[in-house]
């Protein structure tokens, strides 16, 4: 016998099993499709055992083992299916979405509660999110997140009015073209430290910053305190926070030399300035 015949039959059966696993909704039908795939493997094992003339009968013995394992798998699988049915009154795979993440997730309200224990990550995410949103929204976001997170609690009232200062300009300009990665990290990691920085930054008069801000792009309100805090954190946390910032890397690069609070308002510097000025004025 040509070995092609059982091999092709095996491939066909396996593909049918793949279709069944992907297309069926009933869990028991999915289990049946898995059994079809296992049988496709079995027929390959037997055919190649016969072809190679294995003296130890490795192929056929392995076929027996696969049959036994399939029976065990089906027993446990059906027990799980019955337990699910007992709890949910359905075995429809498309409706068992408790572990799913997505827009139709029914447990969205629990997300903010889960964010609370990790203020840093959360602030970084809000920075990413807020990169596209209007500045006013961002200020609102940060106010809310700051009130939740421990570090940002102090910061939230003053951030909106945090004025830009001249000291940062030089650093910001140098930083912008070169170190995009660090800037990303800086922009995100600035969040937690911003809380400590901003009460200090709130004091400088708004007028001085307002004059400079529109002219020089990267100079966004960089209080000295904010700068000092962000520098160490960049090294610490770039690796950790990288993933969150990857999508918005382009925006981050625009936002490079921003300060602790400016880094969070990544992106549209003009908007932030307007908002700040509005907040001040």
């Amino acid at each position: 016998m040509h070995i092609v015949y059982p091999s092709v039959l095996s491939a066909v059966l396996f593909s049918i099993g793949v279709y069944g696993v992907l297309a069926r909704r009933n869990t028991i039908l999915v289990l049946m499709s898995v059994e079809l795939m296992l049988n496709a493997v079995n027929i390959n094992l037997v055919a190649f055992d016969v072809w190679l003339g294995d003296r130890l009968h490795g192929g056929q013995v392995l076929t027996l083992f696969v049959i036994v394992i399939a029976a065990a798998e089906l027993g446990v699988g059906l027990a799980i299916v019955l337990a699910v049915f007992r709890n949910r009154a359905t075995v429809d795979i498309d409706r068992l979405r408790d572990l799913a993440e997505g827009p139709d997730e029914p447990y969205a309200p629990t997300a903010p509660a889960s964010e609370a224990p990790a203020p840093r990550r959360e602030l970084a995410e809000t920075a990413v999110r807020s990169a596209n949103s209007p500045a006013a929204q961002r200020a609102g976001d940060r106010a809310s997140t700051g009130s939740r997170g421990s570090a940002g609690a102090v910061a939230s009232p003053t951030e909106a009015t945090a004025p830009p200062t001249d000291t940062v300009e030089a650093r910001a300009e140098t930083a912008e073209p070169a170190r995009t990665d660090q800037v990303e990290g800086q922009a995100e990691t600035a969040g937690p430290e911003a809380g400590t920085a901003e009460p200090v930054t709130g004091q400088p008069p708004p007028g001085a910053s307002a004059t400079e801000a529109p002219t020089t792009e990267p100079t966004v309100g960089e209080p000295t305190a904010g700068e000092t805090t962000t520098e160490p954190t960049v090294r610490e946390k770039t690796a950790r926070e990288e993933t969150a910032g990857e999508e918005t890397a382009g925006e981050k690069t625009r936002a490079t030399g921003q300060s602790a609070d400016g880094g969070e308002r990544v992106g549209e510097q003009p908007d932030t300035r307007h908002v700040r000025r509005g907040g001040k004025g």
Partner: protein
Amino acid sequence: MTDPVPPFLPPTGQEIVFLLLGVVAAGAALLVVTTKHLVHAALWLVLSFGALAGCYLILTAEFVAWVQVLIYVGAVVVLLLFGIMLTRAPIGRSPDLDSRNRVVAAIVALATAGVLITVVVEGFRGAYTPLEPGPGAAKELGSSVFRTWVLPFEALSVLLLAALIGAIVLSRTDIRPGAGRGADPGGAPPPEDGAQAVPDRDEKASPSLASPPTGRSGGK
């Protein structure tokens, strides 16, 4: 294997029978994954597995063929039918057996089939073996299992035992996670049966489902 490969086209009798059985197996499998009747799917699975057992017989794997008949046709399909019954599947046509991503699944399956068949045909076009009875008999296979493969065999026994216990623990309703904490002072008492576990689901399913476990535990 080193013999000159006979041509494909006048197929031998064995090959003809194998092809017919293979067509039956593949067609039945296709019906398993496309039929609208849930119970019919299990019955088509019987036909598919039976045809595969015939294929094993033609490939001189007699013992595997009978194990296939005993375990797959005899036990697995019956288990699946029990599962269908216990999950209260509708008897008759059920229109929602296929999910929305049917087309994608078909594309993926066709791609898989294309790749596998192409590779297999390219790789084993010249593979040929004459079929001689004997090496797949129960005697040969039994001595092989209990001499060479005895350690995997024993490990498999342990696996079967673990699966057995696991299935029992999973399917019993009088063992609950709250049962162990029930001894704690102030702990909430565990629910008596499955009826409390599904307070918001349809009521006609849960009491009847919960009744066998309670009866069983009452008998003990």
